[in-house]
């Protein structure tokens, strides 16, 4: 996904950006994991 970054940054820097991006997303998901309380209507079809 971050291949385009290599045009502007050295490879090691784009790797760091990439890891930080995924870590942030994972953290967001884990932070709100317990709050999920709404059923998904397509499961009840």
């Amino acid at each position: 996904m971050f291949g385009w970054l290599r045009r502007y940054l050295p490879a090691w820097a784009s790797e760091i950006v990439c890891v930080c991006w995924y870590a942030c997303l994972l953290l967001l998901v884990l932070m709100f994991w317990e709050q999920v309380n709404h059923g998904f209507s397509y499961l009840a079809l």
Partner: protein
Amino acid sequence: MIVQFDFLLWMLVGVIGVWSLPLRWQTHVMTAWGIAFMGYYAPYSAGLLAILGVASYSFAKLRKTAWFWLWVALLCAVFAVYKCYGVREFSSSPVHAWLGVVFYILRILHYNIEAYLRRLPAHNGCDYAAYLFFMPILWVGPLERFENFQQQLKQRHFNRDMFSRGLERILYGYVKVVVLANVLVMSYFNELLQGLDASSRLYAYGSCLQYGLNLYLQFSGYCDVAIGLAALLGIRLQENFSAPWRKTNVGQFWQSWHRTLSQWCRDYVFMPIAASTRKPALATLAAMLVFALWHEFSLRYVIWGLYQGLGIVIWQRWRRSCEVRAWTFTARPWWRICAWLLTMHFILFSFAWTKEPNVRAALQTYKHLLGVE
């Protein structure tokens, strides 16, 4: 369902289990994994799927017209009985007793129709069982086609790039479901809505928007997890969404929202009716009606299906007029922005039918949207 730690455990055990075995065992392990998963979460549904799977494979071998129609009628009857009684009886069950019924009945119908038309590639019962019990598509699709699945099954091998994309896709799916749908749309956006007068135009508009966003994010998020999980197993599934919110007409919208169901309705409802009657408008209405009834057997969904069907028919007539009169303004940016706004609001207002529990409440929402007391 996917937001449970035991689901993550199922994924982890399945993926490690499949790749740790020799290639010749992997298809069987995937099937066993799907059966175990279904048996754990939805035992009744697993039993029904096993019975229908064996019967459909046997009927496909017969290739007799009378048997084919009898089997199609029987499947439609099972679907109708489930829709009339099953949903009401069992959808509140904590083990999702009938999980995935509406999805696998369409996949079985697709298999038998293609087998009857002799369009399926050579395969055996194990291939079909792997298709029916493929764990990633058991709960909300996509409605994968058998020939595509079998080709993927034959070509699959461990690919680092595909594995990495699969992990990324699963993460994006979870972000959509957990963060965007449940937190942003259903919690924060809901708090904003609660501050408004429930009979105001803004509240009606906001609640339609909230329903549409939540539906899109949840459904496409679930599909992302399914597609990502399949990629971890080396199988590339069909996409179910391709940026529907960027489309500038209702025809394109329905080709990019729940694409696999749209394609199913196109192949098995629209095409036969259009070919036999030479009336594409009638075929479009019938296809959208089936599309709607697949969701729910109710008056509000019949109205919703006809609303969408009429929208597509009107758009088709308009497109033909533009072609006949050689109008070129439709390619201009200002027109495309207007067309996008019109399409999005056409879809947004249609959610009034599906978000409300009955026709009366839907009409009330329309009254609020129009500012009529």
